[in-house]
């Protein structure tokens, strides 16, 4: 097998893993056909979040922040252990974010800067590449004090979040809008082919219901920025920012697989540098850096003189013009310590503010089964899978609702979608156990167990039709899914503007029965700001955030 064939295998592997990753996100969707009578749980047919569990960064981060490793995260060892022997093969062969960066970097450029000698220069090892180690240690420091921030920059979580909450919904809006535009011409001959293509592709790429996510602008801009930076430096993200790449670089310290440089045949053509992805100095005459190399094999394939060879236990013929390679990372102990200490220090900085527990946002309603807030923040990697799978578009990325510390973690916005009582999908897809998997029984409750509550509903009597305007409504009571209903009505006689007596039924909420699902807020006909709304008080996950003195009742004693 020639080196060019091996390189083609690498290309194939990149495409394949990217497609698998993308397919899994597409399948993070409620499209199951359950059997109606059996009363069995509705389970997604595929382990759609498994790709995220292959991230050693997520595993190490949650280990440090919560001192547990969620079962599925053991898959990350499949990446981590081979890395110890082979180096950062994950970055060059598997990582879907890396592949995306790779492809965007390689789109031919018109700008001279990205060609020839300039490109060769930009592909030499640069000092900025050590930033990723600072980021890694900073995040690991924060994780040690229980604040998991690695998800912001973990490439797998980042890509899943960006595709799930930005790319696919944008595609949906775009496709539907385009089709509407075509339809507006009113010419069936034009509409039919477009409608055909739309009907063919929409079941694959679009959700049953168009999703609209809160704060996607920040996620979108961040994602686009990362992609655009590839046009300035090849794989800027992978070289300079990615904390997972940094972690894998650390673990390649004792790799037995590496680059062997043979000075004898080299005519200094520098084709190796021209094609280098990792900026790890593959050329003869500079020091090769194992920790930066993505093992993409481009340098070996480009070399016309067979001077470069990747092999196990590479021999190094060191000379004055061919310095020895290094497996060390380019970061001093002092700076490493400083990174960890800043990471440690940032946690009290974030938590000395009021967003965490002291004066937490009342509208911060977490998904059902979410761990208590401190544990939740120690586990959530903000991958957005819960938001993507939620059939009612109820879960959204936060912006500042959970403080800076909880940015892009899930929040339930009932005005857009409520929590379906018999749905347990968010817990099923959570890759790190930040949302526990509930059974329908645990969620809805029965004679023995109290229902899982995410909040409590409150009536805004100044906006409520029967309360403020003497007009009939009761929609919230109609929608309340608990039995008996947590919303009850009392008929009252009120005087309207004309001085007439009218009878209306005014709604009340019984906090003992309310689960905070938000169906009332969702359905309330006062459109722009509902007259009934949920806040997080009464949530099962918190001991403190409670409204009633005694514990919530089960249906046996209600």
């Amino acid at each position, binding site marked *: 097998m020639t080196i060019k064939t091996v390189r083609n295998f690498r290309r194939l592997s990149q495409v394949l893993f990217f497609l698998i990753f993308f397919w899994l996100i597409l399948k993070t969707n409620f499209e199951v056909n359950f059997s109606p009578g059996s009363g069995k749980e509705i389970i997604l047919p595929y382990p759609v979040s498994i790709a995220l569990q292959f991230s050693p960064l997520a595993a190490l981060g949650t280990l440090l922040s919560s001192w547990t490793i969620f079962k599925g995260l053991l898959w990350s060892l499949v990446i981590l252990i081979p890395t110890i022997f082979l180096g950062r093969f994950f970055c060059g062969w598997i990582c879907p974010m890396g592949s995306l960066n790779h492809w965007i970097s390689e789109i031919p450029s018109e700008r001279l800067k990205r060609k020839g000698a300039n490109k060769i220069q930009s592909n030499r090892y640069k000092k900025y590449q050590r930033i990723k180690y600072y980021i890694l240690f900073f995040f690991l420091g924060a994780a040690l004090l229980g604040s998991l921030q690695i998800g912001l920059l973990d490439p797998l979580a980042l890509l899943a979040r960006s595709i799930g909450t930005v790319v696919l919904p944008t595609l949906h809006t775009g496709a*539907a809008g385009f089709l*509407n535009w075509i*339809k507006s011409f009113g010419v069936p001959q034009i509409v039919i082919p477009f409608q055909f293509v739309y009907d063919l592709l929409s079941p694959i790429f679009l959700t*049953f*219901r168009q999703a609209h996510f809160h704060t996607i602008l920040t996620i979108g801009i961040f994602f686009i920025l990362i992609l655009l930076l590839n046009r300035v430096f090849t794989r800027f993200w992978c070289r300079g920012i990615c904390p997972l790449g940094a972690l894998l670089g650390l673990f390649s310290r004792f790799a037995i697989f590496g680059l062997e440089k043979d000075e004898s045949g080299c005519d200094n053509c520098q084709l190796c540098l021209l094609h280098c992805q990792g900026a790890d100095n593959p050329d003869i005459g500079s020091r090769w850096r194992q920790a930066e190399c993505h093992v993409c094999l481009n340098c070996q394939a480009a070399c016309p003189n067979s001077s470069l060879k990747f092999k196990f236990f590479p021999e190094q013929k060191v000379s004055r013009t061919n310095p020895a390679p290094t497996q060390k990372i380019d970061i001093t102990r002092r700076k490493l310590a400083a990174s960890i200490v800043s990471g440690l220090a940032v946690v009290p900085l974030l938590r000395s503010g009021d967003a965490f527990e002291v004066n937490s946002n009342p509208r911060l309603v977490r998904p059902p089964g979410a761990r208590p807030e401190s544990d939740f923040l120690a586990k959530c990697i903000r991958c957005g899978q819960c938001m993507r799978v939620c059939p009612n578009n109820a879960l959204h990325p936060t912006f500042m609702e959970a403080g800076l510390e909880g940015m892009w973690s899930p929040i339930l916005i009932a005005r857009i979608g409520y929590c*379906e009582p018999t749905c347990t999908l968010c817990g099923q897809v959570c890759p790190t156990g930040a949302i526990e998997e509930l059974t329908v029984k645990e969620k809805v409750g029965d004679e023995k167990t109290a229902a899982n509550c995410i909040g409590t509903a409150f009536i805004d009597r100044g906006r409520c039709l029967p309360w403020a305007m003497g007009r009939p409504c009761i929609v919230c*009571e109609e*929608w309340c899914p608990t039995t008996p209903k947590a919303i009850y009505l009392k008929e009252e006689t009120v005087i309207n503007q004309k001085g007439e007596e009218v009878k209306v*039924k005014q709604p009340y909420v019984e906090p003992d029965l309310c689960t905070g699902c938000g169906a009332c807020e969702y359905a309330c006909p006062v459109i722009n700001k509902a007259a009934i709304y949920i806040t997080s008080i009464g949530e099962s996950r918190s001991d403190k955030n409670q409204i009633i003195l005694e514990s919530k009742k089960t249906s046996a004693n209600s």
Partner: protein
Amino acid sequence: MQRRDFLKKSGKALALAAITGGVGFAFHNREFSTGAGLYRFDKRFDVAADRSLPGITLAKTEEYENGLNRALDALGGIKRFVKPGEKVTIKPNIGWDRKPEQAADTNPRLVGEMVRLCLTAGASEVIVTDIPCNDARRTFIRSGIKEAAEKNGAKVILPAEEDYVKVDLGGKLLTTWPVLKYFVETDRFINMPIAKQHSLSGCTISMKNLYGILGGRRNQLHQKIDQAIVDLVAFVRPTLTIVDCTRVLMRNGPQGGSLTDVKIDNSIICTTDLVAADARAVEFLNLKPEKVSHIVLAEKSGLGKIDYRSIGYKEI
């Protein structure tokens, strides 16, 4: 500048100015079109009255399919309502994510049997659909209706955003509303409600079931629920109404949830008169039809008879 260049440049500028001006005039004051115009609805779903037949029949049985057949035969049989080659839309109540025994949605056995009957009468296509409150993917499956209807050969459609047409309902309250197109682009409309308690309208049976054809801000219709219901009945005039009173939801309506709220009555009502249907069915809810304001308003508006015996009532 050469004369030729001058002419060329001026010519181009003039042409561009002409196009700009032309486009400006062409689109001047043009009503902004949103793509879908008003759907023209000029059909009638109902069949001519037949004095020789009873106006409302009720079958009391535990064999639902058999009961439905007998009640329908007494009314003149399915062939009176569905002619060969016609497209039929069946509208059960599939509002909530509940199981059949919780009596929030129409019994799937009745829907399945109705589909079969329509096809035996020669219907070219039978569509079963509704606009549910909860997620359609759940409600259609959990209610058992998707399975039962598909097994009997119906096309079950989960409503999608692009499936609505704007229709002028011509009512006192309801004028232009988005309606799910399958309820207007059809030849026959079979209304298959279930009898349930409702805190505002007292009951939700055959007339209130028609709420389910509307999209848009239908939650606001509760402010004038009686008139909204009556406008809908006057607009749709279903071919046939079959009320599922096999299990009646007595409390916590319209979605229930607890089996203790359900009363088993094993009754099926067939009629062409929605007022009579509701007047008969509210008796199962221990209500008097004269006390239910939308039933009274519907009779006043000439849409049917509360005194259901006057149109010929037959129990089977």
